[in-house]
């Protein structure tokens, strides 16, 4: 649904741009292609890497490791799994809900969802291309640590202990 909105708005913008200035529009498309080609190799590599990882780390294995009894060990483990894997949100949320149903705790799921979104180990090669090594590593480390704060608070609120 999201991509339909994106496509429609881009087509509208492109049409307006075309009528206003053909040369500029052509230049925009050229730039778009150049930037795309620039990271194509990294993107394909990342996709394959994700495929490899997810074929090994399946939902069963994950929920076995991060049950609500698993405490901080489970939180750390889910944070690591979330940091490494890259699952699109539309798959990630139902997966997280399924893990909850299978006995995972809110705190563990909070850590998993947070690192899943903020930390990208497999996408790091793409990120480094744009931000350099140091900033990429720092950003991911900070996001990883921050995810524990998120996990703690979300865990308390979602299980009804707070508020």
């Amino acid at each position, binding site marked *: 649904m*999201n*991509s339909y909105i*994106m*496509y429609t*708005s*881009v087509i509208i*913008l*492109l049409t307006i*741009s075309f009528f206003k200035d053909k040369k*500029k529009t052509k*230049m*925009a*498309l050229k730039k*778009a*292609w150049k*930037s*795309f080609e620039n*990271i*194509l*190799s*990294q*993107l*394909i590599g990342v996709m*394959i890497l994700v*495929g*490899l990882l*997810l*074929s090994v780390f399946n939902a069963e294995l994950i929920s076995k490791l991060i049950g609500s009894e698993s405490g901080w060990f489970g939180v750390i483990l889910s944070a690591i799994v979330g940091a490494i894997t*890259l699952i*699109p*949100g*539309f798959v990630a*949320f*139902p997966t997280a809900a399924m893990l909850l149903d299978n006995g995972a705790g809110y705190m563990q*799921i*909070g850590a998993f*969802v947070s690192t899943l*979104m*903020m930390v*990208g180990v497999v*996408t790091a090669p*793409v*990120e480094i*291309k*744009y*931000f*350099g090594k*140091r*900033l990429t590593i720092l*950003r991911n480390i*900070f*996001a990883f640590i*921050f995810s524990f*704060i*998120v996990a703690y*608070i*979300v865990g308390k*609120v*979602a299980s*009804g202990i707070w508020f």
Partner: protein
Amino acid sequence: MVLIKRYRFALITTLILAVMLLINRELGLKAISITGFSLKEMISVIPPVFILLGLLDVWVPKETMMKYMGEESGIKGIVLSFILGSVAAGPLYGAFPIAAVFMKKGVRLSNVLIFIGAWSTTKIPMLLFEISALGARFAIARLLVDIPGIILISYVLSSLMKAEEVSQIYENAELL
């Protein structure tokens, strides 16, 4: 030769995939189908993102971007970076090329990082989806912790970067 070097990463991962397929056929096939799924997602999101950044690059003057999101943009810049990151769709790697155009246009580093942070965690369409899957308490608590967290991380990160490192990143963005 140049082409091989350019596509080194893709080639290596393809090789690993091939080896896995030989060792464990079942896992290999599963990996291929998951990769196919991700590629399909990429095709559905990436073309509009790149066309959008091409248009942005050509049509929006540097002065405008600097005024709203540059060094002197203050709270206005923070709010705008948040909104732009939150309304977008697509996985995080789609945000990086746009961030590069932002840097080209003189957007300050902390705002670029807020944009990346918002894109990764506070996307509005995703929030509705999160509420329906994990409950409102979970989703809203996460959102309320994430917003100050993203701003804090962005400022700490940009203060940790040395001036020459930042200018190197910005120069690199010109080439991308």
